[in-house]
């Protein structure tokens, strides 16, 4: 008996054993129940694992097509088939992960319906029509992906435009699917009140309520004093019944920030997983050609991840702001109370991402002759990044990590000077400077091995240096002013200014640099494949960090509701109605991360296996033809 068959039989026996072990629990209660326990691991853990794995796979299959279609377009326009092949390879990875995503989605729905029937009944009562729409979109996405992937070779040449259109359509379906499902979970977080009377339906019921309460009113007088900012409850205070329209439920406070944050996050995550895949292939590659190909693929994946990573902190900030706007208590829980230490972990992880991304860029300059001139700036850039990461991860309150004598020496839980780093204005300043430094690393990478021929090259360099210097000074000054102004002004004016300064620098410098290096002479080409193994492990580390970070932030987003299924509307009365400890959450996220990489590894391995078999049969056929020729 072959080893593979033995493993298969053992696997089947194990699955059968698990099914038999848990089956009696499912047979217990078929009456109308509020909750049903999931055997062994509990309902919340079961839903948590299924939801997070589904989300990770979903993020991958939604993120990858976004840049695959752009890379395909670049290949089409430049007539460079390497791009086309790489885009196709990306989509092949996507195809492997697609069915697993759907499978995990199914598992999640079964768990939710079984374990939380009342919650699901409530949600489907409100969101029923969107669930039907979701199914339609899912069919659309599935068939478009099949057409896009299987039609790749057939639709080359004059049909390429149509193929690209399919790619765009695939992204439209994917994005719409995510937006729809985001409305359900964001409603659970921020459902209770809305600013303004948003819909005609709610306006009518609002008038009816007021008229019923006070018969002396007319429909006109009932609306007196009601402005576009009047807070209108969308739920009956006693029964929790939803009184708004479907659009009111969908367009809740956190829906759009979650949508945009996830959209960009998917790009970054997809890029990082592709880069990790390429890194693995690079490490096991036997030929120089393979090494060169996967080095290039890893670079592209990391570049895409970096493009997604740069705006993510700003988008996360926007989401945080909306959470505060929706409910201040929830905001304080998030940043100053129950979940505040989670954000220190988040800072550590984002620090790893930025340090890793910069490391990879600097290591990449080793494969370009002529890049040595930029090496002297590296220690300064590392110093800046590390100082900024240190500021970002410095906690505001040190009571949990200090002894009583240390607290007494500090004169309290806040360090009088380092404690200032714990405030958002310092952290925002730090993150903007990290982003600018990362952009500078990329600029050096882009310039490596090239000499500008533009007559104004020197002036251009002075201008670019001045822009960087002035922008950094502005960001720091705005940050310092942020300590002294009211929070409303800081959040709504100063922080967006800092972001705008960083974005403006990146836009202006990119344009100037493109013109400066348009007709640059090249002193050395990129030696693809000439990368250290260490740099490839960094790519894998980045993917692991992204995955863990997503898991951790998922815990924060969901945990913020505390003991509510729908915040302020439907209470969680199950045995799991407590917020798990951060340590417990971290363990769970680690388990999910390992499971995700095991599944992804298996799917990619299957792809490789098929590829090897195909290659082996092609080689055998070629050998047979050669042998016949020899005869």
């Amino acid at each position, binding site marked *: 008996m072959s080893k593979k068959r033995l493993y298969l039989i053992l696997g089947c026996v194990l699955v059968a054993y698990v099914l038999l072990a848990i089956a009696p629990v499912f047979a217990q209660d078929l009456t109308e129940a509020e909750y049903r326990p999931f055997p062994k691991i509990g309902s919340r853990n079961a839903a948590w694992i299924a939801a997070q794995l589904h989300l990770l796979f979903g993020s991958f299959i939604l993120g990858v097509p976004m840049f695959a279609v752009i890379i395909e377009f670049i290949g089409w326009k430049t007539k460079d088939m390497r791009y086309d092949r790489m885009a196709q390879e990306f989509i092949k990875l996507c195809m492997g992960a697609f069915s697993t995503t759907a499978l995990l989605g199914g598992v999640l729905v079964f768990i939710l319906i079984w374990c939380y029937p009342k919650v699901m009944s409530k949600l489907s009562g409100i969101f029923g029509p969107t669930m039907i729409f979701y199914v339609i979109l899912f069919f659309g996405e599935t068939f478009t992906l099949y057409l896009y992937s299987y039609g790749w070779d057939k639709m080359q040449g004059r049909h390429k435009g149509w193929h690209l259109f399919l790619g765009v359509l695939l992204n439209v379906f994917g994005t719409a699917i995510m937006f729809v499902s985001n409305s359900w979970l964001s409603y659970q977080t921020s459902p209770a009140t809305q600013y303004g009377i948003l819909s005609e339906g709610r306006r009518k019921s609002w008038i009816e309520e007021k008229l019923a309460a006070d018969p002396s009113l007319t429909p006109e007088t009932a609306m007196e004093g009601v402005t576009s900012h009047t*807070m209108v409850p969308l739920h009956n205070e006693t029964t929790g019944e939803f009184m708004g329209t479907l659009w009111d439920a969908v367009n809740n*406070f956190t829906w759009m920030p979650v949508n945009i944050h996830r959209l960009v996050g998917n790009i970054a995550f997809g890029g990082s997983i592709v880069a990790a895949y390429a890194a693995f292939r690079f490490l096991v590659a036997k030929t120089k050609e393979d090494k060169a190909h996967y080095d290039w693929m890893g670079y592209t994946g990391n570049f895409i991840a970096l493009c997604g990573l740069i705006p993510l902190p700003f988008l996360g900030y926007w989401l945080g702001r*909306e959470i*505060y*706007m929706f*409910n*201040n*208590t929830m905001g*304080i*829980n998030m940043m*100053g*109370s*129950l979940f*505040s230490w989670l954000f220190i972990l988040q800072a550590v992880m984002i620090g790893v991402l930025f*340090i890793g991304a*910069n*490391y990879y860029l*600097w*290591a990449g300059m*080793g494969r370009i002759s002529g890049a040595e001139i930029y*090496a002297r700036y590296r*220690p300064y850039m*590392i*110093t800046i*990044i*590390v100082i900024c*990461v*240190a500021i970002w*991860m*410095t*906690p*505001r*309150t*040190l*009571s949990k*990590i*200090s*002894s*009583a004598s*240390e*607290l007494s*020496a*500090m004169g*309290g*839980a*806040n*360090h*009088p*000077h*380092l*404690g*200032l780093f*714990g*405030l958002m204005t310092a952290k925002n300043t730090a993150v903007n400077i990290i982003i600018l430094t990362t952009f500078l690393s990329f600029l050096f990478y882009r310039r490596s091995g090239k000499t500008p021929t533009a007559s104004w090259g020197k002036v251009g360099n002075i201008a670019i240096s001045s822009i960087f210097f002035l922008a950094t000074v502005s960001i720091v000054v705005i940050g310092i002013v942020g300590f*002294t102004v*009211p*929070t*409303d002004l800081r959040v*709504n004016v100063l922080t967006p200014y800092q972001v705008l300064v960083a974005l403006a620098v990146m836009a202006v410098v990119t344009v100037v640099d493109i013109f400066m290096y348009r007709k640059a002479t090249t002193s050395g080409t990129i030696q693809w494949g000439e990368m250290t193994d260490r740099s490839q492990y960094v790519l894998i580390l980045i993917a692991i960090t992204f995955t863990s970070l997503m898991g951790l932030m998922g815990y924060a987003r969901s945990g913020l509701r505390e003991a509510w299924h729908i915040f302020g509307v439907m209470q969680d009365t199950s045995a799991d109605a407590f*917020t798990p400890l951060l340590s417990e959450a971290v363990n769970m996220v680690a388990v999910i991360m390992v499971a995700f990489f095991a599944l992804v590894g298996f799917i990619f391995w299957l792809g490789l296996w098929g590829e090897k078999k195909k290659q082996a049969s092609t080689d055998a056929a070629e050998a047979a033809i050669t042998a016949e020729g020899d005869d």
Partner: protein
Amino acid sequence: MKRLSLFTTCLIILVGSWLVLRFVIGGVISVPIPGSVIAMYMGLIIIAILVHVSVEDSLFREFLRPVRETLVDDRRRVRRRVVAVLIPLFLLGYTYSIIAQRASPPGSPRDAHPSPPLELTYKDEVIGSMQDVVNPFRHYEKDDPEAFKAHVENGRRVYYQNCFYCHGDHLDGQGHFAPYLQPIPANFQDPGIIPNFQESFFFWRIAKGGPGLPAAGTPWDSAMPIWEDYLTKDEIWDVILFLSDYTGYQPRTFGEAH
């Protein structure tokens, strides 16, 4: 003069950074930094050094050369023996520092800020949702400066009659009782206190005191009395006006959403 090896330079940077954090920033410039924070910073500095030396193969080889020599080169026999003694000694000392019994009590595991309830109450009366309630006298700041001044003055009276014993003459948490309290009273002069919370939050903290703090994030160990037993609603709102007027910090407000 012989040029220092890369490894030695890195070691000097590492030790120098620790000395700066421990004695310059945490001594000459400011108060001592907790060991855990120094460890966190030192971890980052080690990462920075490793990043720098491992980016290029040639640099990495140069960095590892003394390590390699110490381990395999017979000319470095003495150094090898010294390292062979130092490493276990270091581990021994480190282990001892972790497991040794100390006289000092552990730090407080409390959360940074307590999580407020969804509804603001005064005794048993519901004032409104924590999100929406505003200081009823705040609008006088623009509409009637004289009335506003009177409320601030009343707040000042309330503060110096009741609060200054702990929170200090200058609202900096350095009152007479402060050295004997753990956790120490809030320092309103800190830019991270008043601007980060709405006035409803301060009302809740003052009204409910230490015993009214939530079950989550405990132990709070706050010595703050339940002031709703002693002060009227208006007095609490007035003292909040005084806190922001004296320090110059505005409590948090929220602009228009959507």
